[in-house]
């Protein structure tokens, strides 16, 4: 597996997990149907690493999320796969109230290196309201490290970093990115530091912050508008911790800011970026957000589902509005 190839996002995650399992005997995986590997993440890993390392669990998310903490306290580095983003709601106590808090509450005696991964977050067309959430803003609010890779290389590099990290970390792999491919040299895949942004396309007029599958959309819009406005596409890669220095640099250059964000508007990721920019960055025009609506629940029918997700045309309109100083 050397040399340049078109690597898919799903395969990149699978390789990252395999490489971590191979590199560190403490790494193990819990989840439902992960022996079969239907979500792609664990494909072939049970065969390679065995039942002691890749463990199919009963439908007891709270139970095995709690177990992952205990295993972590005893020296393991568990990765847990969740089939549905909202299963994170089911284990919110285990993540936000247990894993996240144990280090501080024990005065540093404990640390909880657990990785939670949803290898199909956000809308999966036709899966309706309970399967289409994108709750990364919630985990960032709580203060759990929250990673949303956009490209296969980042999916690889961030998953490796998440597993190596001594703290609990949630990785969202957007369903709409899972099939994307990137031409790259496998030998150059490497861990990507948590908290470091990446500028996918430099620009001088406006900074567009995009996450996950929306990075590709933002790049398309930037191309579309190229004759009109010079767009810098800024991908934080990790929602929390956020690379404020890099954003400050970008906005200092462009003076204008648009965020496109697949989470609900109110108190979402987009709100944080705008707020932080308004506090401390030199904006020359009011910033804008393109988000899911307040309180959004994704309806089932395709037309409705799409009507609730941020689309390229809205991003283009927001960019134009910001350029107009509206």
């Amino acid at each position, binding site marked *: 597996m050397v040399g340049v190839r078109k690597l898919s996002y799903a395969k990149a995650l699978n390789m990252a997990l395999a490489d971590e399992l191979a590199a560190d005997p403490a790494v193990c995986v819990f989840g*439902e*149907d992960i*022996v*079969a590997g*239907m979500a792609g993440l664990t494909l072939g890993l049970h065969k390679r690493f065995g039942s002691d390392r890749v463990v*199919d669990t*009963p*439908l*007891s998310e*709270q*139970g095995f999320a709690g177990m992952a903490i205990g295993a972590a306290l005893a020296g393991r580095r568990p990765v847990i796969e969740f089939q*549905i983003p*909202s*299963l994170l709601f*089911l284990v919110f106590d285990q993540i936000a109230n247990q894993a996240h808090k144990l280090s501080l509450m024990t005065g540093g005696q404990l640390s909880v290196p657990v990785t939670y991964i949803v290898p199909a977050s956000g809308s*999966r*067309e*036709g*899966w*309706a*309201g*309970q*399967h289409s959430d994108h709750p990364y803003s919630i985990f960032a609010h709580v203060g759990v490290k929250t990673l949303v890779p956009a490209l296969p290389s980042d999916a690889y590099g961030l998953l490796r970093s998440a597993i190596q990290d001594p703290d609990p970390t949630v990785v969202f792999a957007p369903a709409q990115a899972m099939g994307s491919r990137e031409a790259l040299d496998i030998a150059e895949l490497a861990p990507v530091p948590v908290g470091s942004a990446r500028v996918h396309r430099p620009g001088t007029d406006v900074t567009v912050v995009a996450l996950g599958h929306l990075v590709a959309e933002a790049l398309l819009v930037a191309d579309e508008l190229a004759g009109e406005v010079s767009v810098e596409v800024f991908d934080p890669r990790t929602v929390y911790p956020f690379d404020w220095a890099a954003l400050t640099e970008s906005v200092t250059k462009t003076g204008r800011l648009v965020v496109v964000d697949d989470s609900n*508007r*109110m108190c979402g990721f987009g709100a944080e970026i705008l707020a932080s920019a308004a506090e401390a960055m030199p904006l020359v025009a009011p910033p*804008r*957000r*393109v*988000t*899911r*609506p*307040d*309180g*959004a*629940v994704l*309806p*089932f*029918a*395709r*037309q*409705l*589902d*799409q*009507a*609730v997700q*941020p689309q390229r045309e*809205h991003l283009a*309109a*927001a960019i134009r*509005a910001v350029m107009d100083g509206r």
Partner: protein
Amino acid sequence: MTGSVSARAGMALDTPALRYRMIRLIRGFELRALDLVDAGEIVGGIHPYIGQEAVAVGVCAALRSDDLITSTHRGHGHVLAKGSDPARMMAELAGRETGLNRGRGGSMHAADVGLGILGANGIVGASAPISVGAAWAAHHAGTGQVVTTFFGDGALNQGVLLEAMNLAALWRLPVLFVCENNGYATTMPISGAVAGTVVGRAQAFGIPAVTVDGMDTEAVLAAAHEAVTRARAGDGPSFLECLTYRFEGHHTMEKQYRLDYRTDAEIAQWRQRDPLALAGARLSTVERERIDAEVDEQLAEAVRYALDSPHPDPAGALDYLYASGLRGRAGWSA
């Protein structure tokens, strides 16, 4: 206040012929739905109920029309057996405005409140406490309603279902817990997931629990009838373990994978106990063929209705988000 949710009467299921008819309806519905998934008319796929029809039909045959049910991700059979119009159900799967949920819910969330169908659920186990709460309300309102909650063997490992059983037992609520043990939760065999026995898990809460042949409607009906009678008499919840099998994959998406969690031989063996054949064998060939023809006609019409129905207007994407009519802010400005 309670009771208002269930006014319309469903299909009568009080003869073996009517029960055969319903099994045939569910089977035919699912086969047509599979076709529509392949054709791209049903987006996102379904969890087919094929093979398990005797459970839904046997249980619903024991219910009053004002009784309530909650269902699962594999819920089409429950919804049809409780009496929903297959045309509106099919329209829902096809995401049309005429669907049971106006195209907002789809396969995993079908509800038909007028028939006492409080809804399927995409989260395994989540329906159980909802049913217990409805039973608590019915109990205190003295309506005599019984609430049935369907779930799979996988749900037995969800804490919230176990909590719900404890609450129902503690307060002697009119709940019927129906476990459709089809042997697997997706690829996980029950032996790899459930320590102890299925009925033992319910009995530990003091809930009477029996195991029945889930391929035989009449056996399911008999057991459900006993349980429902007990609940209606104020003697609390019961638990049925229905041994059954799904003939298709877990979800239509399963076809994309080569999975080996069960053998062809095992599937073939269970297919020999096809609930459709078992129920059909109770009728004369003539009667069966007459019913089959009627049902096929009805289903053809249901498919036509669904596909002829309008798609919802994107402008209404957030309609019904708040019962109060609250409108939050849009995600972008014009």
